[in-house]
């Protein structure tokens, strides 16, 4: 049975699209037929992060309006055979994204794909709502920073009250916490909320921790999902998180700061 997973956060700039790209790639690398949909109508960016921006011909709104068949709008990923991208429209406004239209597309995708990853826009308006409405599971992307944690809490409230599962009284959307842009040394210095703090506040199970890293910018510069950047801690962290999502028991990494010796603290190491 195909699963619909929304990548959401409320707040912008926390790493939803970076996560959608790497998460979808990770699922595909493990042999799952996967499609990732950009719901940010008017401000599409998933195509750039996936490196397929020059191959966009039709988009989700074209499919909803019947201007193009779904199969013609899907773009095959250049790294993974099992992965396809459905881009958002750059020109239309977000109201063109009707719930009935989105439902039709998701139902059609369910016939072919194992996982349907929905990359939500920021905010709590129509685009974000359409992205989360049909979700079976949710990755709540959160930065260790007060406004991000608060917005994640707000999104969790919306998932619990307004998603299709909530409205129809089905089993609730399964929620996963993904902490991104994590800096263990700043946490150790008491300058940043810890993963434990965030988990205690949001009260949902932790799926993974992605460290703050320069390789994320390098990945987006080159249009390569961060999970493909060899030997980077971000790629390792995303692979771990995908493995946990698939049910593997993988210990958390990249959460502890490197030990700084007393000598270094006294004499300065930097």
């Amino acid at each position, binding site marked *: 049975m195909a699963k619909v997973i929304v990548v959401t956060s409320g707040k912008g700039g926390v790493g939803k699209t970076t996560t959608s790209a790497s998460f979808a790639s990770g699922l595909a690398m493990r042999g799952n037929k996967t499609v990732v949909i950009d719901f940010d109508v008017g401000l599409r960016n998933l195509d750039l992060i996936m490196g397929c921006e020059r191959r966009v011909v039709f988009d989700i709104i074209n499919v909803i309006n019947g201007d193009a068949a779904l199969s013609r709008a899907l773009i095959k990923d250049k790294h993974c055979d099992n992965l396809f991208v459905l881009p958002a429209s750059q020109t239309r406004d977000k109201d063109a994204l009707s719930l009935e239209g989105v439902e039709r597309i998701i139902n059609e995708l369910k016939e072919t794909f194992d996982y349907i990853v929905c990359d939500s826009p920021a905010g709590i308006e129509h685009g974000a709502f359409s992205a989360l409405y049909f979700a079976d599971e949710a990755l709540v992307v959160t930065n260790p*920073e*007060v406004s991000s*944690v608060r917005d994640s*809490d707000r999104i969790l*409230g919306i998932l619990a009250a307004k998603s299709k599962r909530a409205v129809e009284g089905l089993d609730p959307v399964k929620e996963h916490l993904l902490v991104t842009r994590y800096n263990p040394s700043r946490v150790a210095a008491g*300058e940043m909320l810890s993963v434990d*703090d965030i988990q*205690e506040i949001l009260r949902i199970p932790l799926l993974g921790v992605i460290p703050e890293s320069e390789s994320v910018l390098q990945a987006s510069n080159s249009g390569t999902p961060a999970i493909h950047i060899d030997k980077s801690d971000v790629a390792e962290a995303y692979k771990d998180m995908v493995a946990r999502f698939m049910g593997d028991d993988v210990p958390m990494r990249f959460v502890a700061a490197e030990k700084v010796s*007393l000598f270094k603290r006294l004499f300065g190491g930097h």
Partner: protein
Amino acid sequence: MSLIDNLLDYLRGPEKKTAVMAKERLQIILAHERAGRNAATPDYLPALQEELLEVIAKYIHIDRDKLKVQLEKHGEYDVLELNVTLPENQQVL
């Protein structure tokens, strides 16, 4: 920084860390916002208020705004709070 400064910092120990402040502030504001969210959810509250007004009106004249119906969360319990302010000179019908 000189050796002395570093040594002093090390011995002085931490001041109140901003991460601790962040956590405390979030716990307070989110408890408040969650309570507001949950209280606003039940859509039967306005109807309940109308019917209560009708019942009360059989016995006492009160203004519409003198009846308050609220649902609050106190820890694990939901508390339905009815607040009826009676007029000063009660007129029994």
